[in-house]
């Protein structure tokens, strides 16, 4: 059984510790600590370039209490694949005896865009690792530029809302489904507000006996323009509006989890997308009459994707 009781979790060794320089309200350290709590096996971590990497490893300091490697932006997956290859070789030669788990962290830039091919390759090769995408829906480390994960209508510094253009024109790519198309043992979407759901998923990912992928919504106060005290509230809202459904794909079976399961079962209300758009400054321009059609299109798209997911999960 996966340990999810707060009392027991609080007794686990901290693998990601104080002193990092991430912004107040950043979701990333919250997510990372939840993920790292999900196994009591030794873990080796690779990290793509991004906020999480630069803020946790400023030489000669480190927040990492486990072996950790950063090499470049687009290659967290093959980097940990190399570590795993070394592990397999050295284990075969009797030079290593421990049972180790392998984990990669990458932002949405590293995952959806520049590192897409590398992740696909690592999953196709059947590497035994858990890849966690810290999805804050833009290139936050370089100052909030659009990514393939940025929502339609959101403002970033490379898709600003102007007089002619309503922020990002395109819908984000559905990375979780693209990963699932690799037919890997385990993939899921998670949110830091539901730590129990996240830890259960990470535990499954660590023990998947093959590649596993968890896409986690990671609200960014600076990039999304909200009060840094509201990170957990915003991540919950992403699930409640069905913009970020919680679900998992386990050995071929799709399953809704957490609040999403309850929404599908009628035990919980599906909130309108307008609640989401109102909660963040990056969508502020959409309240203008001129761009009202964009808000409607986002709602229509969320509804369409939600219905598709319900069918896949046989709800």
């Amino acid at each position, binding site marked *: 059984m996966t340990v999810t009781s707060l009392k027991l979790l609080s007794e686990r060794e901290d693998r990601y510790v104080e002193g990092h320089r991430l912004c107040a309200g950043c979701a990333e350290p919250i997510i990372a600590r939840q993920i790292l709590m999900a196994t009591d096996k030794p873990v080796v971590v690779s990290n793509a370039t991004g906020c999480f990497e630069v803020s946790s490893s400023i030489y000669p300091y480190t927040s990492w209490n486990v072996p950790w*490697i950063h090499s470049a932006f687009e290659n967290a997956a*093959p980097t940990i694949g190399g570590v795993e*290859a070394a592990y397999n*070789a050295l284990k075969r030669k009797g030079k290593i005896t421990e049972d180790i788990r392998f984990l990669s962290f990458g932002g949405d830039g590293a995952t959806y865009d520049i590192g897409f091919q590398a992740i696909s*390759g690592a999953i196709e090769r059947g590497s035994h690792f858990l890849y966690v995408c810290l999805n804050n829906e833009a290139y936050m480390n370089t100052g909030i530029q659009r990514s393939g994960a940025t929502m339609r209508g959101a403002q970033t510094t490379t898709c600003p809302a102007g007089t002619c253009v309503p922020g990002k024109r395109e819908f984000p790519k559905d990375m979780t489904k693209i990963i699932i198309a690799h037919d890997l043992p385990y993939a899921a979407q998670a949110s830091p507000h539901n730590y129990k759901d996240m830890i259960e998923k990470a535990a499954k990912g660590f023990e998947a006996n093959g590649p596993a992928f968890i896409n986690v919504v990671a609200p960014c106060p600076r990039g999304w323009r909200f009060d840094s005290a509201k990170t957990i509230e915003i991540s919950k809202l992403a699930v409640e509006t069905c913009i970020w459904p919680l679900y998992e794909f386990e050995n071929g079976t799709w399953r809704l989890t957490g609040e999403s399961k309850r929404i599908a079962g009628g035990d919980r209300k599906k909130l309108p997308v307008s609640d989401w758009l109102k909660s963040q400054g990056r969508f502020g321009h959409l309240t203008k009459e001129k761009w009202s059609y964009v808000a409607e299109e986002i709602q229509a798209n969320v509804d369409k994707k939600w219905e598709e997911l319900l069918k896949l999960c046989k709800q």
Partner: protein
Amino acid sequence: MQNVAMNGDQAIALAWKQIDPDVVAAYPITPQTIIVEAFSEFVADGLVNTEYVCAESEHSAMSLCIGASAAGARVATATASAGLAFMWEMLYIASGMRLPIVMAVANRALSGPINIHCDHSDAMGARDSGWIQLFGENVQEAYDDSLMAFRIAEHMDIRLPIMTCLDGFIVTHSLERLETLPDDVVKKFVGEFKWKRSLLDIKNPTTMGPFDWTDYYFEHKYQQAEAMKRVPAVVKSVSEEFARLSGRKYDLIEPYKLDDADYAVVAMGSTAGTLKEVVDGLRAEGKKVGSLKLRLFRPFPAEELARTLEGMKGVAVLDRALSMGAAGPIFPELRSALFETSKRPRITNYIYGLGGRDIKPEELRTVYDQLMHNQGETVNYLGVRA
């Protein structure tokens, strides 16, 4: 010792088989392909204990090598041309992290236009990446360099990645006589690879590849430069040890009939072999000429070159690559190496063989003729239709 007929790629795969590295991760590209194909067969037949990873690109191949090396594995890979260019970002990271990765480079032209044949543009594009670069002349050297490379890269005075370069097709695909060493001799020579503190040392968790501000980056780069300075001594000692096993002597440079020569032509790779033939012909005519093969390009053996070429009347540098808008890459470095010498020869540059254009003995003879008659521009082109 055993005599076999092999091409350069097969010879490298054989060397790796004898060494049995922990991890090989690679992506196939002409003319390196035979290395990874031959090695795959060793894996398929259980003749090696290596964890072999077929990457989906060269960028990922080098990323895999970096992860594996940081985790304490002995690692080898191979590439060429566009593949090396695609790795470019990762080359600096491999050397910056002081990872002793061994990489065979089957030298091939860079696109565009796309061309699969030999020149040195690929390796020259990586000359500033902090990798040691050895250039072999023939199949035997491709094999020997592959054995010595692990010892050089893994030496505790150095801990830097190394490229063993060989001319695409000319060496990679040519069948030549190869003298191999017995497996146990190779194993003993290469020895066990030991890491001080690897990523798999879970009791001593290490942060690798951290973020350097302005306060540390420069010092780390300086340490790398200092490690590079220690390379020539290690190349010499490893080569001497290898000579005792094999009877084949190597050094940083290989002078040929230079002792009493007035004129010398300098080259890297297979052309150095053709030059010896041309020198023999000219010597038979009583001309006081010789040639020089540059084996180690990075670090650049400036002192040895200066000592060897000082006092000559003329030196021509053959470059199988071109820095557009400047000259060949070897030329300015060699000229700079000779600048402080008291008896400085006249030095000219010849760009040749781009995209696999054949270099003929008659053409090399022309270079000597021009040298001996004080002719030729500073930078010349050999064998091109202007």
